[in-house]
């Protein structure tokens, strides 16, 4: 053993600048830069270039084509529907996330682990299957299909189906972000508030919520990004009726399949922009959370 200790890098001569002395827990510079190079090359091919190509292709034919593709009526109605679907599904999942986090983080009850697994379930279900199950329930040949038809209500191939599929896909986001910090917080502060005479809602608004507001915002940001970008599940239930049941991702698909590449990438660039805004907000919220944890 003593022989190998002797081979540890030691300062060779007094003339060597202290910076070149490598500690025993770092790697030689060539290893470092090789690894950095491999990592950046991998990310470039699979991440940076795909992101860049969206914007380049979108503007390939100039601003006029770009703007025309976005303000065209079908595109406008797709944007509108995407916003509507997100505006309904995000608040629903927000309320659910708060309710689920409240009982899971603040109480000890039987079946808690089962409930946690159930909340995660939609993450492991393929988007296509998420769409399929709603077709099985609300479709013409489904459980409620005949009843819905008799009452002249449409769920599948209509806006309610799109909203339902989006709700399913984005179901766990808020709950998952809220549960860990609320669990870490414990129940002492809430109990103290209770002893001092606060009611349930007062405890929630004045004690619990201020403690987890960043985690809540984080969950909402992720939930919203997924809600606006969902493709597979929405594709199954939408029926692709132009100007009526097309969301932005579906509109992109139609344009692309019609070889209107510039227009497809123009609409795609809006969603890519949304993704970038999401990442910036996410980064900002993470910094705030780190700051408050200190």
């Amino acid at each position: 053993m003593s022989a190998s200790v002797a081979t540890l890098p030691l300062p060779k001569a007094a003339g060597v600048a202290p910076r070149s002395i490598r500690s025993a827990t770092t790697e030689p510079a060539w290893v470092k830069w090789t690894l950095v190079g491999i990592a950046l090359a991998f990310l470039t091919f699979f991440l940076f270039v795909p992101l860049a190509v969206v914007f380049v292709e979108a503007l390939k034919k100039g601003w006029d084509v770009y703007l025309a593709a976005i303000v065209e009526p079908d595109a406008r109605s797709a944007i509108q529907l995407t916003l509507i679907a997100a505006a309904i599904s995000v608040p629903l999942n927000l309320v659910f996330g708060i309710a689920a986090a409240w009982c899971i983080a603040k109480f000890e009850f039987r079946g808690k682990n089962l409930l946690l697994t159930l909340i995660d379930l939609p993450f492991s279900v393929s988007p296509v299957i998420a769409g399929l199950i709603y077709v099985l329930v609300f479709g013409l040949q489904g459980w409620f299909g005949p009843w819905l038809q008799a009452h002249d209500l449409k769920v599948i191939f209509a806006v309610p189906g799109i909203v339902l599929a989006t709700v399913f896909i984005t179901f766990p986001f808020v709950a998952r972000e809220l549960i860990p910090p609320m669990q870490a917080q414990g129940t002492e502060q809430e109990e103290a508030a209770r002893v001092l005479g606060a009611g349930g809602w007062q405890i929630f608004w004045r004690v619990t919520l201020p403690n987890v507001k960043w985690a809540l915002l984080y969950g909402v940001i992720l939930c919203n990004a997924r809600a606006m970008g969902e493709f597979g599940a929405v594709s199954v239930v939408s029926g692709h009726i132009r100007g009526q049941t097309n969301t932005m991702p579906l509109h992109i698909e139609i344009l692309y399949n019609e070889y209107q590449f510039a227009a497809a990438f123009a609409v795609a660039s809006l969603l890519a922009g949304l993704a970038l805004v999401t990442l910036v907000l996410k980064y900002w919220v993470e910094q705030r959370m780190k700051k408050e944890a200190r």
Partner: protein
Amino acid sequence: MILKRTLLKRHSVLPGFDLALGFTLLYISVIVLIPLSAAFLKTATMTWPAFWEAVSSPRVVASYRLTFGASFAAALVNAFFGLIVAWVLVRYQFPFKRLVDALVDLPFALPTAVAGIALTALYAGNGWIGQFLPFKVSFTPLGVFVALTFIGLPFVVRTVQPVLEDLHREVEEAAATLGANRWQTFVKVIFPILTPALLTGFALAFARALGEYGSVIFIAGNMPMVSEITPLLIITKLEQCDYQGATAIACVMLVAAFILLLGINGLQAWARRRQGR
């Protein structure tokens, strides 16, 4: 009140348990459990031979092979490069590091349809990257692999990164004083600590890739028997109004996904125990 009396293990002075749990259970049932059960109940109405026929015809089996094979390969590539990316982000300083770190999450945030058309354009024969490659990527099974690699990229990085950050320098210093060189320290000390997180990341990337649809259909070319993934086959059957056939295949995929979910839960419990020590 019934929920509180039967389920609560310990009395609590905090209010709202009944309301919160009641709403949670109702919402989960309506949105997730009842619709999911529809898939299994629909399949249960099929006879066994019809079910077997639906889930094991050559075209379906070819789609399983492609979906599972490409997902596995993509998760493997992500495990390897993800480990390097996580290492580089935690241990080294280099220009634009924070930007790179933030962009790793892009596949979570970028809608899959956008990723699909971008990758197709890039790796097509006349694309920025495709024109330099001696083989075809877009519209072949290799394209499926590329799309699934993109989709699964953040998982390994984001599961390994926190473990690496928490790793105590003392452990490595101890290894060095005992005479290990850097490579030995990595293989025998650091890597075993990272293993549970690495496996979890791999499994998460694999599970995500299995169900992926949006990014793949653009780049795959979707030729039956060659580059057709299972989720697409489900949609094809649906469009032909073969609801039973579509649901039967969906059940096979759901069972595979649930088994993976159990495996991932087990891995995460293992990782927590490892870290707790």
